[in-house]
């Protein structure tokens, strides 16, 4: 009983210690930005002027709905990553959005109004080729899905399959297109490359083959890339070799072959080396497509053509050059063709050139590109047009442009940009937080302390003058406050611009430099989340690896801060450097070293050159070292220190871990090697300690007043391996603690019946790792803590070369009731504050778990000593409390990384979680002990003070009266 109560008391105390968000703090220090990724398909809701919704499917397997007026996300559905969740096609009909997912695995229908699923149907196996709506008697009731070897029809209302048919001779024929023009048949088009074209007509009723024929087409290799259907079911193909258009009526059986129209006869010329592209539009699945279509002849040259009623001849309607992108959109009975032209180009672009109306009208509009050709240099790959009927029955349009740098721009009719979404931020690879620069006055004040004393009197004068400037600044601030208080609140906007950026009192506001996979760099203000600068690196390969290094911080005024981005091509291993100013995003013009060989490793040394930039060493595949910057001063310093510079290399494919030492001539020397045989296990990850981490206390005071000293080896590496055997009985996870200088294996822990993915944190004297227990089918946390014992071997200096005793290792394991996606530890300025682990969960929550719960000294039996040490009794299962979610309901989908940075306040740690979304907040692992809390009750304190003051006054007076009365008596 006593044990139980003590447990309860201790738990209660922890409940009090661990922090949580208060409801009134929502959005005060934190913000979230939600992204979806690069758009693959986009559709707009019904074509009225007031409609606000648009729907996109992206390369991140996300189906989302935006408010088209503001660009805000209405709802979003995040599917599995990888090919199993990839979206093959998105079709929209009325309220229903139809989606084929996972290379023809599933067919889903969404209710776009509320963002819920209507139904989900499993499709037969086979890779997806095409899909289209099928109408029966003018109403769209079915959807046809064409796979590699089968075609199936599904009801739109419930997803049930109407019929499925195997395609004849599917080994030889590549079926690539399906077409329905509102008749009783659905046509499947297949091609045997460079031989012939196959057309099969299926009956809608029962899937019977009505007719089947093949047409000679030796020039045709792919229907997808070179053919479209135009007019009354006429297949239109373009052949870049013969420079001709080919037409073939699909339905008509009497025409046995394609008829050829040479482009020359239409006075059209193809840009040399360009593959011509056809663009057509089928406004309604129950009708046949438009007879007007675009032909792209060059990168910026489009022609609008029309197929005449006879189905054989073509009439050119208009020529557009320069024009980057074209697209069709339909509203009611009117169809709009949008042409995107670069800015400041005079193009003959009459508004509303209408073709002869025959039920369908064609109106032409020109969209002016949001950025001209040269300044942004980004050719927009996709254009989506939302056309709608205005009240006066004229056609209005809005345009969505997806550019190569993953920016999504929405443009109103006069070419005005309504909103822009930076979707590149959906895939942040790495980031750093950089201190903001001091303002001019602040810098001046700081400068006063740095200089050598030049006499007493000038110093006093300087002191006084700086105080005056401070007073001035304060008065100006007060005046501003007063001035703004008079204005209505809506007008007051604290616009953050690069010019007004300056460090705040406690260094809580920083610049977040984010590197995205698309090669676009962003500078984001950590307080508001607004993007202050962006820079697109155009020649970055899609599979490049990035490493961001802060070479010079803002502390070295007047030298600007300097960041270096190392970009490495994963295939060739060749690296390039991009040096920039992290505050303004501008590229620095510094002579970059030539890097002709693949780079294996990079290391940032604490050595600084005469301009206060830290030295970056790059090791190439011949173990030669390149220094950047490589001035004479730096090389001299390197020579002096060479004997104490060590580095390590890992080759996971060979299971090889090796350590090197730098020689005076900047060549290297291998000093140790550890081989983990790749037949048994592979190295999954290696982590050292963070260089900016501070450990405040050298040991822990035990219950009996003795001290247990921590084993604080700054050179310690944690190496995690996984077994190659994935059988649940034989799989294991290994953790090796290796000294990076000597190669000595300090400790080795093997978790049997366990497999990855392993997430781990290595900090101070502990390693926390998480793995999957295959036997009990649960996630487990394990903590390793290293102690030197009750005596320090050498308390003045730590040297890896002189440490004869191995540390004592304590380990404990706990059950964690949820899988995790990422893990990081909080970091503070001096390391006095207790540590928390920040754990990203698949639900999008970020759990702040006190490190005290992961302490291998948690006792099973509570004793006097353990109670004095404040150890929590051991419990096998780790709690997850929703109060510990630092991001409350602001979930971060697919958390990929958590970045922690210290602030100027010891109690406060800045946290950025990134994945699909970006979330920034502050955490106080030991509560805010160094500043007044934001809910500090000033009113109460001052009222009590005043009350006491008046009470003393009154009682004094009363006492005087009493004394007087007594004297008279």
């Amino acid at each position: 009983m006593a044990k139980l109560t003590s447990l309860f008391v201790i738990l209660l105390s922890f409940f009090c210690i661990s922090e949580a968000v208060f409801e009134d703090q929502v959005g005060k220090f934190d913000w979230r930005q939600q992204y979806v990724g690069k758009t693959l398909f986009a559709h707009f809701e019904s074509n009225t002027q007031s409609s606000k919704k648009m729907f996109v499917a992206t390369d991140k397997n996300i189906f989302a709905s935006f408010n088209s007026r503001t660009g805000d996300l209405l709802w979003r559905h995040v599917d599995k990553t990888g090919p199993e969740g990839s979206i093959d096609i998105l079709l929209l009909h009325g309220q229903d959005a139809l989606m084929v997912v996972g290379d023809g695995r599933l067919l889903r229908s969404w209710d776009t109004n509320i963002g819920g699923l209507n139904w989900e149907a499993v499709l037969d196996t086979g890779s997806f080729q095409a899909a289209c709506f099928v109408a029966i008697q003018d109403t769209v009731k079915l959807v046809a899905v064409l796979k590699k070897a089968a075609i199936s029809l599904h009801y739109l209302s419930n997803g049930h399959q109407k019929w499925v048919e195997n395609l004849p001779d599917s080994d030889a024929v590549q079926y690539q297109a399906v077409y329905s023009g509102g008749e009783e048949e659905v046509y499947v088009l297949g091609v045997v490359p460079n031989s012939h074209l196959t057309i099969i007509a299926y009956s809608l009723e029962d899937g019977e083959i009505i007719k089947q024929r093949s047409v000679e087409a030796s020039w045709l290799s792919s229907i997808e890339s070179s053919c479209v259907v135009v007019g009354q079911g006429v297949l239109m193909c373009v052949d870049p070799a013969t420079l001709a258009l080919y037409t073939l009526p699909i339905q008509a059986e009497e025409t046995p072959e394609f008829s050829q129209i040479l482009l020359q006869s239409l006075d059209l010329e193809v840009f040399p080396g360009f593959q011509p592209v056809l663009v057509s539009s089928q406004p309604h699945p129950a009708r046949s497509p438009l007879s007007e279509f675009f032909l792209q002849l060059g990168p910026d040259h489009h022609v609008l053509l029309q197929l005449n009623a006879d189905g054989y001849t073509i009439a050119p309607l208009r020529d557009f050059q320069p024009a980057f992108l074209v697209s069709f959109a339909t509203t009611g009975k009117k169809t709009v063709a949008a042409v995107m032209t670069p800015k400041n180009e005079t193009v003959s672009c009459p508004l509303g050139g209408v073709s002869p109306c025959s039920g369908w009208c064609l109106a032409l509009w020109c969209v002016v590109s949001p950025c001209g050709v040269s300044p942004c240099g980004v050719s927009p790959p996709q254009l989506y047009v939302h056309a709608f009927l205005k009240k006066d029955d004229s056609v209005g349009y809005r345009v969505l442009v997806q550019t190569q740098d993953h920016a999504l721009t929405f443009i109103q009719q006069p070419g005005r940009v309504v909103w822009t979404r930076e979707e590149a931020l959906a895939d942040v690879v790495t980031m750093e937080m950089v201190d903001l620069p001091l303002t001019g006055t602040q810098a001046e004040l700081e400068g006063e302390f740095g200089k050598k004393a030049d006499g007493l009197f000038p110093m006093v004068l300087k002191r006084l003058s700086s105080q005056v400037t401070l007073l001035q600044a304060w008065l100006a601030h007060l005046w501003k406050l007063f001035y703004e208080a008079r204005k209505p609140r809506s007008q007051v906007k604290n616009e953050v611009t690069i010019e007004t950026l300056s460090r705040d009192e406690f260094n809580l506001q920083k610049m977040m430099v984010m590197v995205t996979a698309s090669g676009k760099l962003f500078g984001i203000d950590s307080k508001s989340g607004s993007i202050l600068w962006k820079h697109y690196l155009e020649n970055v390969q899609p599979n490049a690896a990035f490493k961001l290094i802060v070479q010079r911080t803002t502390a070295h005024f007047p030298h600007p801060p300097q960041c270096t981005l190392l970009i490495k091509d994963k295939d060739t291993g060749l690296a390039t450097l991009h040096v920039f100013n992290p505050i303004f995003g501008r590229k620095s013009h510094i002579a970059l070293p030539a890097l002709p060989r693949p780079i294996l490793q990079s290391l940032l040394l604490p050595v600084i050159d005469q301009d206060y930039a830290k030295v970056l060493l790059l090791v190439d595949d011949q173990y030669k070292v390149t220094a950047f910057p490589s001035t004479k001063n730096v090389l001299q310093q390197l020579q002096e220190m060479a004997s104490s510079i060590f580095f390590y290399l890992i080759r996971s494919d060979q299971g090889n871990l090796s350590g090197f030492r730098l020689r005076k001539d900047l060549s290297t020397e291998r000093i140790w090697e550890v081989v983990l045989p790749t037949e048994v296990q592979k190295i999954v990850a290696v982590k050292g300690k963070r260089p900016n981490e501070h450990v405040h206390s050298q040991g822990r005071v035990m219950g009996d007043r003795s001290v247990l000293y921590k084993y604080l080896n700054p050179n310690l590496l944690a190496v995690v391996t996984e077994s190659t055997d994935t059988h649940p009985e034989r799989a294991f996870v290994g953790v090796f603690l290796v000294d990076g200088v000597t190669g000595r294996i300090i400790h080795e822990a093997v978790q049997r019946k366990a497999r990855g993915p392993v997430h781990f944190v290595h900090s101070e004297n502990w390693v926390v790792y998480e793995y999957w227990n295959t036997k009990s089918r649960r996630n487990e946390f394990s903590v390793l803590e290293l102690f030197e014992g009750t005596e320090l071997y050498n308390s003045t200096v730590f040297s890896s070369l002189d440490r004869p005793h191995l540390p004592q290792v304590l380990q404990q394991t706990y059950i964690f009731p949820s899988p995790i996606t990422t893990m990081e530890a909080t970091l503070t300025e001096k390391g006095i504050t207790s540590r928390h682990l920040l754990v990203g969960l698949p639900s999008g929550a970020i759990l702040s778990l006190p490190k005290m719960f992961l302490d291998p000294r948690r006792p099973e039996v509570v004793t006097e000593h353990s109670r004095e040490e404040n150890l929590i009794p051991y419990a096998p299962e780790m709690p997850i409390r929703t109060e510990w979610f630092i991001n409350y309901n602001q979930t971060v989908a697919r958390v990929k990384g958590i970045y922690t940075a210290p602030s100027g306040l010891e109690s406060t740690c800045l946290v950025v979680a990134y994945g699909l979304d970006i979330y920034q907040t502050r955490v106080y692992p030991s509560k805010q002990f160094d500043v007044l809390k934001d809910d500090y009750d000033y009113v109460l304190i001052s009222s009590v003070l005043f009350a006491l003051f008046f009470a003393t006054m009154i009682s004094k007076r009363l006492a005087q009266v009493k004394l007087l009365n007594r004297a008279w008596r």
Partner: protein
Amino acid sequence: MLLHGRLSELCIFLQAMFVFACCFSDIESGPIATSGSVQPNGDRFKLEGRAIVPGVKTQDWISSARVTVEGEEYIGFMRTDGSFVVNDVPSGSYVVEVISPGYKFEAVRVDITSKGKMRARLVNFIKTSEVIRQPYPLQLRSSGPHTYFMKRETWGWTDFLMNPMVLMMVLPLLIIVLLPKVVNTNDPEMRKEMEQSMNMLNPNPELPDVSEFMTKLFSGSKSSSNKAVGGSKASGRPAVKRR
């Protein structure tokens, strides 16, 4: 202390010397292929269920909810009526969870045999083999909204008054004020008795009363200080004269 500082400094120095850069070595802790890779003709089953949030319309919460099976291994979405299906799940044992940022749902463990027989049971990570059956198809009922926020300690008069310290102060005060009114002080017998009791309380009558001492100090300080100033002036002048 000095030793301490130097030690940590050296540590940092050494640490910085040996720079840990886990950069372009070939390690990538990227996604690891799941063991259940796609089998072209393997037996795949579907998991069915329904989730209910009492008192909330389905359209208000389903757009932000989803169903996860064993982390994010398999994902299902909510239908407009609150039911869900997760397709393409091979046989095995899975923890199925409805995840919603607004509402709390219990997780359920679902076992699928190789023949496709389903069984749902409570999740117990400690005794993993324990079976407490749950209905299948799953019936998940939300136990209410998540509690993300701590309550602020608000300040109220009742809290203040009910504070034990305040109670300890207020009660004697009441006694002091009320007792003289209850007890007739004009009665000489009573007075005698009280004096006696006071004497008993104050064992040493020689000791000065603290309150009296304080009043003396504060009321008398002005005049005494004035006098002192005057005295110093008076004594200062002759000194000047003497020079």
